[in-house]
């Protein structure tokens, strides 16, 4: 039996056993519709309320400002489409997740103006650029908190101040930050913030949008008055309960210093891998979430390395999971100014709470040998070395 080590936690994370246990009754005995008057409904309503409080605690906001959604993509869409109208101007960045980028592109084709603020070689947005991009008709700034490919954490607090001064809504996609670093909506000063359950050991198919009180948000789904008429549709109770439990566990994790432990593991992995010749760290110099490292291995095709490692039991990725199968190298790495061949030679390793020190050692025992094998058979690398 091949040992399997999963270091692709920015794609998704395994549901923690406690989360699964918390969800289980809501697939069975507690099956009620949270909108129902009777006892069955009351039980699930209470569970949804508790989960909302746990998520609110994670984000340091009142529970009433949490809207449950089907995931990060829906929350991003709701934030952007819910706020922007034709004729508006929106400021975003070149390294956003496609849930934000493609929402903006869609609006661009339907009467909105969009400014895509660039990033520097570390993958950071200059808040000054955001400020300079503002116009009289700017209605929204949407800049992510942590990048999914590099883990780079943006200066969202500064951007929050800029937005507040200008009286412009500020949305931040915190999908890759929530559960990994402390996220406080008041410190950030955002009006809208997206999280996704499965990125921090909750289930897939559930997320939430933080909506600051007073934000004029048009719903996208119409139907019943669920989620205070901000998101119609019968609640995904097991999912919401799982998200709540994951938020609770993340919170206790911070108190225990989980983020520090993760940073230590990532540090060892990164240091050792960077000893391989012709490698480098993407996003070096930027503050990062503690679980992510993105490394280029010159002269290889990232795609082939991912497959070769998978066959040896190590799961990693070439970048955003959604990019696989596309010819373009990662839009994030390209925006940082990486050469296309180097962007394609880049691999993302992302840790989760389930990973042990042995997992890191397994990766360190597997990656260098695999990289050598690929390079031995790579005409590109032979040319590179001979130069």
């Amino acid at each position, binding site marked *: 039996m091949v040992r399997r080590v999963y270091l692709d936690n920015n794609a998704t994370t395994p549901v923690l056993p406690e989360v699964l246990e918390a969800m289980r009754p809501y697939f069975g005995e507690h099956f009620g519709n949270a909108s129902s008057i009777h006892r069955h409904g009351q039980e699930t309503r209470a569970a949804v309320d508790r989960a909302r409080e746990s998520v609110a605690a994670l984000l340091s906001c009142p529970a009433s400002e949490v809207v449950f959604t089907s995931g990060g993509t829906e929350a991003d869409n709701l934030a952007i489409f819910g706020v922007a109208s034709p004729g508006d101007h929106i400021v975003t960045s070149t390294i956003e997740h496609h849930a934000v980028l493609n929402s903006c592109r869609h609006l661009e084709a339907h009467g909105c103006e969009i400014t895509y603020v660039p990033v520097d070689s570390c993958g950071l947005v200059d808040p000054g650029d955001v400020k300079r991009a503002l116009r009289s008709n700017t209605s929204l700034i949407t800049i992510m908190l942590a990048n999914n490919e590099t883990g780079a954490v943006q200066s969202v607090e500064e951007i929050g101040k800029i937005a507040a001064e200008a009286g412009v809504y500020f949305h931040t996609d915190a999908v890759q930050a929530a559960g990994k670093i402390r996220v406080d909506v008041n410190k950030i000063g955002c009006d809208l913030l997206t999280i996704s359950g499965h990125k921090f050991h909750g289930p897939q198919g559930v997320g939430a949008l933080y909506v600051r009180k007073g934000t004029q948000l048009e719903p996208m789904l119409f139907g019943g008055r669920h989620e205070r008429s901000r998101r119609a549709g019968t609640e995904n109770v097991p999912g919401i309960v799982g998200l709540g439990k994951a938020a609770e566990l993340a919170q206790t994790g911070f108190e225990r210093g989980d983020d520090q432990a993760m940073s230590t593991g990532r540090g060892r992995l990164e240091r050792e891998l960077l000893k391989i010749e012709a490698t480098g760290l993407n996003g070096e110099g930027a503050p990062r979430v503690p679980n992510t490292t993105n490394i280029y291995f010159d002269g290889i095709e990232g*795609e082939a390395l991912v*497959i*070769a490692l998978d*066959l*040896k039991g190590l799961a990693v990725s070439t970048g955003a999971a959604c990019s696989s199968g596309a*010819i373009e190298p990662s839009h994030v790495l390209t925006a940082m100014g990486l050469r296309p061949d180097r962007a394609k030679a880049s691999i993302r390793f992302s840790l989760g709470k389930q990973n042990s020190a042995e997992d890191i050692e397994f990766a360190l025992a597997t990656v260098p040998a695999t990289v050598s094998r690929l390079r031995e058979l790579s*005409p590109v690398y032979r040319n590179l070395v001979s130069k």
Partner: protein
Amino acid sequence: MSGGVDSSTVAAMLRAEGRNVIGLTMQLWNQRRLAGHEGMPESVQGRCCSIDDVYDARRVAETLGIPYYVVNHEERFERDVVRPFVEEYLAGRTPIPCSLCNNHLKFDQLLVVARQIGADRIATGHYAQVVFDEPLGRWLLKRPADKSKDQTYFLFGLTQEQLSRTLFPLGGMTKPEVRELARKHNLVIAEKPDSQEICFVPGGDYKRFLEAYLTEQGELPAGISSKTIAGEMVTTDGKVIGEHAGVHNFTVGQRKGLGLATGSPLYVIQIKNDTRQVVVGKDEELYSRTLRARRVNLISTPELQEPMRVAVKIRHKHQPAPALIESAGPDEVRVTFDQPQRALTPGQAAVFYDGDIVVGGGWIENSAS
């Protein structure tokens, strides 16, 4: 694995033999890329690299319990297959993209990826046989048992290294046997129809494809009928008898679509790239006895030290014709047929056979000596 019957059955056969099999699908062309261009279909179904085919291949791999991956080689495919395909047509030749794909993608890039991920060999669903000949010390490419499915014509470019790392498990089988085996293995694609056309050209309409591609590339802003590629139709004795909208519309031996009203049937005899003239004439003027093959790859022998009697195939559906081949310089071979052959077409391949053994082959440069 293309998602078709042949490659799927190969995977099933190797799996049944207890081999350690990894399924790979090459993503070579985005079938939606040119959708919306004039004359191009909005969606293409059941074509190589379509979402449906990748889905089928994945389902087969899952049924067989083998690891499966899609590898993206769109960039290389465009550079080494699509581009040359387009340029060959614009230069008045008639290209064979499948051979280019075999030479540059399947048995080159894919083989590199296969070796990088730890596989010793690649197996494909081609109808051909590869055997090692001890006395000769060479890997031989041979025609398959099912002569009606023979694909050796497209494989003449394989090197000894490539052949040594290749398995053609269908070489000894007929197509009905392959389908039967696919059914036996409960493969979902057992009844899927064969694909015949060039995988990236929807409906086989290569002219539309050329126009859409060149427009997309911004190389043909005025439409393909622009003056830059139009030219004259001339007879073999040099008389101008009409005009044409581009040499890419013609192939040697073509009769239909010449746009000429004459008493006797006329055929394309030659396409002159330098003057953009399309030379037309009578059927008998299409026949010639000699051709020069360039960029020759020899398989059964390291070199042609002396002239050799072989049978030469000049297009996929051509019945190999007896001929003498002799070296005509580095990588060049002069072919002299016993009987004149109809429509020797530049851009096509001349593949040399000794019985079932592929001696080698090259690209037809011209029919003149």
